[in-house]
């Protein structure tokens, strides 16, 4: 059924929007009643208990599988079967090489799925996997991202942006400029590590595949897997009522989802469970590829930029291209008549990189905002003032007027709240006992993204209640709560009167919970459907009547440049004897449109700040050049910020309404908190010590004297 497309009007009343409504699923989650992907009590039609799947992965970085000997595994009690590339069901479409697993003998990276063991218990599946003997023929491989790795220009970069841009004559302008920065900044492998690993329970009944999945997008999973499996979309149902975090890694389906689907199709009527191990996540579920950004800035003595170049190189996989759009934010941040941005990728024998919170913006703004700090130093200007002087009147990229660019207010408000004015101009000016003390600032930005195609259904129930349905997901962000608020205001009823049904691909289309586009896109569809519902059925509808509407494009993306902005302020302490870095204070002030729920919004922004701090100080996957795998493959060796690393943390926002972006007046907030944060920390460590570290993370050894 295709629903009529409706473009909503702005919401007239915001009675629930703006209140800190408690999380709708909070009690289930804290009491353990929420069932995650492998906890669903799924049984087959005759009560068959689930089988357990375990992945067997390659231990060479490139080569082929010569033979899979499953004899010992099959002899182990409880092991039911072992699938490999000779025995797994054939896919109808293998063009997506990341997902087309067990179809051929080629090994393209270390950690690739080469067999799947099915067994009666997870213990026997695991032991069976250890007993599978995979004979591999190794070939020479290149898995380390190096300065001289061969690169190429992708056709476009992640998000669909242009690979290169050029305005004016940046090289000539740079050569002429009186104040310049010419430096290279790098970010390492970073790995999304949601608390709940990638996991699923699948049941194939011969006609229908049901997948309880841990995903950011039930519909996208269905839309991707169904054609590959040779099924109609309606034959696949994906449910994800509770998801223990994703950070982008569950935004696109990855190989484990295909593995569990294929395995289930070999045992009709019997559910199959798969939970990826923490170690396997470092190869199979995406990661942020290392980036190297060569930034050149040329300015007048008063700090105004004349030219800007950002040449970003990043790592991709031979299996499938992923081009982190690290130079894209440089296109919108500052005014400069001469500008160029480029992207190149090095294709290596490594796992497929993918989305990790704020792909592009996170590493790109790290590079750029440290470069701007260096420019302020060279120009003898306060870093806040330098940014203010380079505020563009219109979007430098498109020439469009800004929808709602309030970066300067974020900087000023943040500076005041942080006490920025008291800061010594000179670096290495403050000592407190064993510590050098410094402060730093960085700007952040994230585009307003709206996904087309969302559809919502509203049905009236008895007693003035409404059922609202859309295949959206709540990956822990609070989407279930804010969509309830949006529906309540759109229908003019209290949030308690809303029964929200979501996270099921059988419901009307919902786009991915990614790109900070969820609330924007689903919310716009819910408002459209609610307004149409009132038009169809009036203020006092009979129980049972319903309206389904597809969301038209509300956001004025063609007429205006729609972006969020923010400013992050940081105090860093660097130990004079060991170089250890601690961050006693971190403050972010954002302009993100209207805040739908202050409680869940604050938690998103704080979470982004913590993740940015974590990237600044700790996160680094170390890939072994000999084997091609990340050896820091657990949370004891891949460090993320611990509680003690996070001290005084504050997130605030401007009082804002953005009627150009959504009928709610809001924009997305899931990612902007991580953007710029690492640069603010790096700039503060420079101010503390006078030592400029351009390569993340900012570990102690970099500051050691």
């Amino acid at each position, binding site marked *: 059924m295709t629903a009529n497309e409706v473009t909503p009007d702005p919401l007239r009343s915001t009675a629930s929007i703006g209140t800190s409504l408690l999380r709708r699923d909070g009690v289930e989650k804290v009491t353990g009643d929420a069932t995650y992907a492998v906890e669903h009590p799924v049984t087959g039609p005759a009560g068959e208990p689930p089988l357990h799947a375990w992945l067997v992965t390659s*231990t060479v970085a490139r080569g082929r599988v010569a033979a899979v000997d499953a004899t010992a595994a099959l002899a*182990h*009690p*409880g092991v039911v079967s072992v699938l490999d590339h000779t025995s797994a069901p054939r896919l109808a479409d293998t063009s997506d090489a990341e997902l087309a697993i067990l179809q051929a003998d080629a090994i393209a990276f270390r950690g690739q799925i080469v067999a799947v063991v099915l067994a009666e*218990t997870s*213990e*026997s599946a695991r*032991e069976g996997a*250890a007993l599978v003997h995979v004979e591999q023929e190794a070939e020479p491989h290149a898995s380390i991202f190096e300065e001289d790795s061969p690169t190429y220009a992708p056709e476009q970069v992640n998000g669909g942006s242009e690979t290169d841009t050029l305005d004016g004559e940046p090289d000539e302008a740079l050569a002429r400029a009186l104040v310049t920065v010419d430096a290279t900044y790098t970010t390492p492998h970073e790995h999304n590590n949601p608390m709940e690993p990638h996991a699923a329970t699948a049941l194939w009944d011969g006609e229908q595949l049901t997948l309880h999945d841990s995903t950011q997008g039930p519909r996208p999973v269905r839309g991707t897997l169904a054609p590959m499996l040779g099924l109609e979309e309606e034959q696949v149902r994906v449910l994800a009522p509770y998801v223990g975090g994703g950070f982008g890694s569950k935004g696109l389906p990855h190989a484990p989802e295909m593995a569990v689907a294929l395995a289930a199709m070999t045992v009709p009527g019997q559910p199959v469970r798969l939970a990826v191990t923490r*170690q396997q996540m470092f190869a199979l579920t995406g990661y942020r590829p290392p980036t190297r950004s060569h930034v050149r800035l040329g300015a007048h003595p008063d700090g105004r930029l004349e030219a800007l170049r950002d040449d970003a190189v990043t790592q991709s996989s031979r299996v499938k291209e992923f081009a982190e759009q690290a130079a894209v934010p440089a296109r919108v941040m500052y005014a400069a008549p001469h500008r160029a941005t480029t992207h190149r990728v090095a294709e290596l024998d490594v796992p497929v990189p993918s989305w990790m919170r704020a792909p592009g913006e996170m590493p790109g703004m790290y590079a750029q905002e440290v470069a701007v700090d260096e420019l302020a130093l060279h120009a003898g200007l306060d870093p806040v003032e330098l940014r203010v002087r380079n505020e563009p009147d219109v979007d430098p990229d498109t020439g469009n007027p800004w929808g709602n660019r309030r970066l300067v207010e974020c900087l000023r408000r943040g500076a005041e709240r942080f006490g920025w004015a008291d800061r010594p101009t000179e670096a290495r000016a403050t000592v407190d006992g*064993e510590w050098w003390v410094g402060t730093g600032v960085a700007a952040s930005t994230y585009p307003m993204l709206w996904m087309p195609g969302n559809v919502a259904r509203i049905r009236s129930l008895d007693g003035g209640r409404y059922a609202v349905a859309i295949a959206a997901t709540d990956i822990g962000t609070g989407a279930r709560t804010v969509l309830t608020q949006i529906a309540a205001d759109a229908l003019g009823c209290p949030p308690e009167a809303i029964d929200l049904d979501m996270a099921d691909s059988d419901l009307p289309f919902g786009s991915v919970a990614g790109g900070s586009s969820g609330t924007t896109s689903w919310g716009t569809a819910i408002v459209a459907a609610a307004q149409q519902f009132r038009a169809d059925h009036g203020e006092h509808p009979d129980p049972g009547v319903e309206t389904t509407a597809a969301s038209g494009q509300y956001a004025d993306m063609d007429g205006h440049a729609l972006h969020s902005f923010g400013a992050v302020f940081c105090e860093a302490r660097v*130990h004079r*004897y*060991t*170089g*250890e870095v*601690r961050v006693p204070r971190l403050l972010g002030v954002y302009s993100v449109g209207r805040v739908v729920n202050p409680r869940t919004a604050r938690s998103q922004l704080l979470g982004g700040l913590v993740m940015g701090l974590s990237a600044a*100080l*700790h996160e680094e996957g*170390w890939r*072994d050049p*000999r*084997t091609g795998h990340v*050896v*820091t*493959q*657990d949370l*004891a*060796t891949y*460090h993320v*910020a*611990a*509680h*003690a*690393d996070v001290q005084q943390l504050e997130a605030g926002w401007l009082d804002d309404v953005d009627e150009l972006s959504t009928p709610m007046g809001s924009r997305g907030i899931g990612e902007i908190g991580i953007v710029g944060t690492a640069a603010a920390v790096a700039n503060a460590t420079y101010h503390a010590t006078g030592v400029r570290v351009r390569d993340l993370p900012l*570990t*102690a*050894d970099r500051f*050691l*004297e």
Partner: protein
Amino acid sequence: MKELTYHRADDAASAVALVAADPDARFLGGGTNLVDHLKLGVTSPTTLVDVSRLPLDEVSELPDGGLRIGTNVRNSDLAAHRAVRRGWPVVARALLAGASGQIRNQATTGGNLLQRTRCVYFQDVTTPCNKREPGTGCSAIGGYGRYNAVLGASEACVTTHPSDLAVALAAVDATVVVLGPDGERRVPMSDFHRLPGDRPEQDTTLAHGELVTAVELPASAAARRSTYRKARDRASYAFALVSVAAGLELDDDGRVSDVRIAWGGVAHKPWRAEVAEAELRGRFVSEEAVRAAAEAELAAAVTDEQTAYKVPMVRNLTALTLTGLAEGATR
């Protein structure tokens, strides 16, 4: 599934008899390290003998002013113990610098000393490792090296010992009390852990089946004026990049009459910096003097690109720690 027999030991002697008789048996303490290794496949014993419930969980004062710590005293209880905090602050601080509150609640004294290396290759059974599988080679050479040793390493193994407690015990000249099939013996901390040599599979001088029953701390002025400092990659819940356990006694002129320096994160065992101690004895404590003494000790250091930082880091941290002790600051 691997079959595993679990015994809960009734007394220390029968636990020792069970393990000594079976090369595939292991003692189980708090399990915070061993159970991880069972899951990772690092070790595959057929029998576990749980010693964590044996009544060896007392801290008692010895007639000579020392302290006897039963092996089953949990790390958190030991760190909080008043006598320890008063007489051996380095021990309490080292414990609190390690792991997390939950792990310390579970971890035992003996288990802590016998925890195994955190080398990433040791923990990954798909990579060669001489410590895990003798003769297969050392993946850490030419691999990930941030936590590797700079002193006393061998061609067979370049890893470090992860325990913070062990470093503190080395500084205060603790004695480990061990029960074996032939009875009890007492092992000075300096002889307890070993350098890798050509037998990296052997972390300690214990024979299979020997049970740690207690640790004894002798009283001293240097132990009373002692502290522990640890540099790490995050503010908590991280193993040491380097650490310093130190104790100091000054004579009436303010010269060093006794000094103890042990380093963590630099070697396969807690590294007692005897050269540096000798340099400092009889001298005034100053940053320069301590740096010079530490450098004398570190003359033997062998580093590479990934470990080069450890030399200045441990030197600086030693200077800070001893000057702090000399000034009477305890932290």
